[in-house]
Every structure is written in structure tokens, then in C-alpha cells.
């Protein structure tokens, strides 16, 4: 074994020393470099994972909000359509009522006007008749006094006495 090692130029003592050095170096590296580095990497990994998770959650919330928004928008549209339909219906109804009332008012006004004209015509006729009656009576009174003779007067009295 010593011959083999000597053939290959290996000094066992040096090899042992180098191995010991290597182990010490390995220990130091592991203790002061790899461990903190791994810890930082682990933390970073966790942070990234957390961020990704949060991003997913945000995305999910965003999607939900978007869906809700769409839903509410659809509801609002439906409601608005309903309101517009109702308003149109009401407006049509009001217009129809206004038309009916206007027609009725016009009809009533016409009726009143006709009635007034009728009354005025009747009044005029009455007044005319009154005046005509007065004229006829006056004319008859004037004529009678001149036309009737004493004989006529006596005959009238005789007739009245007979009729009593």
C-alpha cells in the first residue's frame, strides 16, 4: 500500500492534512456561507410563493368583482329597461288621459255654447214676441176706439149681458 502511494507520489501525511483542511473548510463554508445563503433563498422562495398566492387571490377577487360588476350592470340594465318601459307606458297613459279630457272639455264647451246660443235665441224670441204683443195690443186699442160706433158698443154690451 505504501509502495502504491509512493508510486503515485502521494504523501499520506500530507493527504491527511489536506483532508483535514478540506473538512475544516467545508465546515466553515457550511456554517457561515451555505446556511445563511440557503436561508435567504428559502425566505425569498417563500416570499415569491406568498406573492404569487396573493396575486392569485387578487386575480380571483378581481374576477369575482368583474363578474359581480357584470351581473349588477345586467341587473341595472334590466331595471332601467323596465323603468323606461313603465315611464313610456305612463307617459302614453297620461297623453291618452289628456286627450280624453281635452275632447271632453271641448265637447262640454261646445254643448255649453250651443245651450247659451239656444237660451239667447229663446230670450230674443220672447222679447220679440213681447214687443210684437205690445204693438198689436196698442194698435188694436187705438183702432178699436175709432172704429167702434155707439151701435157696436150697445151690441157688445147686449152680447155680454146675454152671456152672463
Amino acid at each position, binding site marked *: 500500500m505504501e509502495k502504491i502511494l509512493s508510486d503515485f507520489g502521494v504523501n499520506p501525511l500530507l493527504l491527511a492534512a489536506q483532508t483535514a483542511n478540506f473538512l475544516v473548510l467545508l465546515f466553515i463554508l457550511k456554517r457561515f456561507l451555505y446556511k445563511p445563503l440557503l436561508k435567504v433563498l428559502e425566505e425569498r422562495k417563500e416570499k415569491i410563493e406568498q406573492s404569487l398566492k396573493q396575486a392569485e387571490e387578487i386575480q380571483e377577487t378581481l374576477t369575482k368583482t368583474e363578474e359581480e360588476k357584470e351581473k349588477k350592470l345586467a341587473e341595472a340594465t334590466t331595471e332601467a329597461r323596465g323603468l323606461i318601459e313603465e315611464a313610456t307606458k305612463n307617459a302614453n297613459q297620461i297623453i291618452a288621459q289628456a286627450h280624453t279630457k281635452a275632447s271632453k272639455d271641448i265637447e262640454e264647451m261646445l254643448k255649453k255654447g250651443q245651450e247659451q246660443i239656444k237660451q239667447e235665441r229663446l230670450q230674443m224670441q220672447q222679447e220679440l*214676441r213681447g214687443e210684437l204683443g205690445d204693438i198689436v*195690443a196698442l194698435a188694436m*186699442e187705438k183702432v178699436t176706439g175709432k172704429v167702434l160706433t*155707439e151701435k157696436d158698443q*150697445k151690441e157688445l154690451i147686449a152680447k155680454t*149681458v146675454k152671456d*152672463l
Partner: protein
Amino acid sequence: MKLNKQLKKQIDLAVKASFNNGKLNEKKALEFLKLFKQLPEAIQALSLYKKGLERELNKTTLVVESATPLSQGEIKKISDKMKSLYTIYSIHHTINPGLLGGLRVKIGDEILDDSLEAKIKEIRSAIII
């Protein structure tokens, strides 16, 4: 001064008592006049009594109105006809040219108007209505 109901009733009774079968009993009427004269409300009482007497007298008084004068014969004819229908104690004849012709006879509240004026009024009313 206003007359009370009681006195008005008594005056009405006095008016009725002043007539015998529709004819005025002057003696009784004078007695009532004297009696009402003594009342504190004499003027009102006498006025009411007078109105009552006139009303009652009108019931038996024939008033004949004509446009021209009537002869005695005509008045008699009218009075005879009316006496067959009403109790008549006196007759008044008045001339009213406004009647134009014919006669108007009144007794109490009854009026028989056969004058030309009434006929013209009837024609006027017929035209107006």
C-alpha cells in the same frame, strides 16, 4: 202700535156680527165703532174694522164697469142676471173708457171681464207665450 191676535180675532167677529144675512146692520156697526174708539189701539182697530166691513160689503155689491154709459134697462138686466147667482144688496156703475167696449162685472172677489181691453190682453198674452 201693532194689534194683538186676540183683538184681530175680535174685530173679525165684530165684522161678521155687523151683517144680517149679508146686509149691513148700521146700528150694530155704529156700536162697534164706538167700542173700538175707546181702545188704546183705536186707529189700527178702526182701520181693520173698516177694511172688514168693506170686504163684506163687496161680497154683496155688484160693480158694473163699461166703456160707454149704460141705460137703466141694461143695468137692470145685468143685476137680474147676477142676482140669480149671487146675493146682491147694492149696485155701482162706473164708466171706464179704458175698457174700449163690452163690460166688466165684479162682485166680491169674482170678476167677469168681457171687455175689449181683456180680449186684447188675451191676444197679447197668446202672442207672448
